């Protein structure tokens, strides 16, 4: 086993990008940026990473530069957060349409206003439908591992789609914790050099980004959708390959004590660890509580999710973003829609918690489980509650 080093999680992401030997990093280097690209710019400037670092004047330009470099056949990385991600918005749709395997780390943070720099998922939920593959990390090791996995999946010729690794801002990005650093040889064995399926090449000219008139637009979108759906087995295959190479197994849906659980907590991102400890403490107190962690958000692993919750009577879904005007947060909306198709299923209690970095503690999870079980028993309507609102 490789030795663990104490490293800030942002830097673990940068080191993974360095180990992936990227060709181009284009990023807006100022707030709301993280240490991820700051460290990458140091690695490039100091000669430790042979890549082009393009410090652009906005995130809109960052994603545009990434589209260009990926189209030219370069392994391409960027990172952003919050309002910066929002400024990329219109270009984000272009990357999967052009089938460009860009990898991006998103340090999930609140969108203003009020002005906030803290963690929640409102930035990425606003980009739910851009057509990128999306995973969520729970800790620093996962950030490193999922970043390497992202290049492997995105560039696979059966996929050729861009991919986002989500990591909670501050709650992960600014924490020092133990990270097992793989060696360059191990990474090289897992991740071969990027071989683009097609690229902009003056010797063999092609056109990319053409007009999709009404007669072909629908078919072009269908083709992209098919590619996203077909990425699912490849994502799993490369997690299995990752386990063989590095000894750590990942799955689209991770479970903890679900087999005999009446009530199952559903988390995505860094809440998963505190929730897991809360579940262990509730188990020790004789409660039949389990946990499901959503690691793969897009494409959503519907079958795996339904299997995981098949025995549950009550789900306690954690949403870290609001969907104003809707009946639930984005994660619970997804889950309710899935469960509806089964014609039965558990009661779904939805809590919007941890907005703008508000702490969600073990005690909070226990109280949410109590409240959800009571609501299920009373047959209360399945809406959502904003957790911990001060009266």
């Amino acid at each position, binding site marked *: 086993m490789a030795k*663990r*080093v*104490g490293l*800030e999680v942002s830097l673990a992401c940068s080191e993974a990008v360095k180990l992936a030997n990227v060709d181009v990093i284009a990023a807006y280097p100022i707030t709301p940026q993280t240490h991820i690209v700051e460290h990458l710019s140091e690695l490039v400037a100091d000669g430790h990473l042979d890549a082009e670092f393009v410090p652009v004047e906005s995130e809109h330009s960052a994603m545009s530069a990434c589209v260009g470099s990926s189209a030219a056949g370069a392994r391409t990385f960027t990172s952003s957060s919050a309002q910066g991600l929002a400024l990329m918005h219109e270009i984000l749709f272009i990357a999967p349409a052009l089938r460009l395997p860009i990898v991006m780390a998103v340090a999930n943070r609140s969108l203003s206003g009020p002005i906030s*720099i*803290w*963690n929640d998922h409102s930035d990425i939920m606003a980009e739910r439908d851009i057509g990128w593959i999306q995973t969520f990390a729970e800790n620093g090791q996962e950030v490193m591992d999922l970043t390497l996995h992202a290049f492997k999946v995105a560039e696979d010729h059966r996929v050729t789609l861009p991919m986002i690794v989500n990591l909670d801002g*501050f*709650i992960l990005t*600014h*924490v*020092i*914790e*133990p990270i097992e650093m793989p060696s360059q040889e191990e990474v090289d064995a897992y991740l071969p050099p990027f071989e683009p399926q097609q690229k902009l090449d003056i010797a063999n000219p092609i056109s990319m980004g053409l007009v999709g008139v009404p007669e072909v637009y629908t078919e072009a979108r269908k083709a992209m959708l098919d590619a996203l759906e077909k990425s699912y087995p490849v994502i799993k295959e490369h997690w299995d390959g990752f386990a063989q190479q590095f000894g750590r197994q990942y799955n689209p849906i991770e479970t903890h004590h679900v087999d005999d659980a009446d009530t199952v907590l559903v988390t995505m991102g*860094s*809440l998963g*660890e*505190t929730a*897991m*400890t809360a579940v262990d403490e509730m188990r020790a107190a004789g409660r039949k509580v389990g946990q499901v962690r959503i690691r793969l958000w897009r494409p959503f692993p519907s079958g795996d999710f339904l299997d995981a919750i098949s025995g549950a009577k009550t789900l306690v879904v954690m949403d870290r973003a609001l969907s104003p005007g809707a009946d639930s947060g984005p994660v619970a909306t997804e889950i309710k829609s899935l469960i509806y198709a089964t014609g039965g299923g558990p009661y779904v209690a939805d809590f919007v918690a941890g907005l703008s*970095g508000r*702490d*969600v*503690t*073990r005690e909070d999870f226990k109280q949410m489980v109590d409240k959800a079980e009571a609501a299920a028993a009373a047959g209360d309507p399945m809406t959502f509650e904003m957790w911990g609102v001060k009266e």
Partner: protein
Amino acid sequence: MIEVRFHGRGGQGAVTSCELMAQAAIAEGRYAQAFPSFGPERRGAPLQAYLRISDDPIRLREKIYHPNVVVVLDPALLASGAVKDGLKEDGVLVANSSKTVAEVRGQCGYSGRTAVVDAAVIAQQELGVPITNTTMLGALLKAVELVELDSLKAPLDARFGRLAEKNLAALQRAYAETEIEE
């Protein structure tokens, strides 16, 4: 698992202290977590930083509400009362102050194990600046053997380069000069 909460002000290096300790513990093959109280870093504003050290993997992302140890970098924060919030009765308070242990206890209202050192004077003399974060690690280590002193040397080198030696000297002097009362 041991939980430590640092109280300082922006610019005093509380976050760095936690990071150095976490790196030292991880280098010893243990598990650790260091994180700030996540705000815009404003010089002079009171802030907290957190440190967990454990022999087992740490699966917690909540702040530290019931610390085993509290370290106070700025003497002016001792009177605020916030420093002893949630501090366990069998815990330890480690304070930078020119006052006696009895006086510090009176200021902050904590009656448990208390360690005091005049870190500002040591830092001024050893480092030439009144930044007490590395100095206070000496007091912390004397009060609680969280890591081996040797394990801190590499993180200090990585962080401070040619200034590492002076920081280590300040840390060791604080270790020697810290007064502890049960």
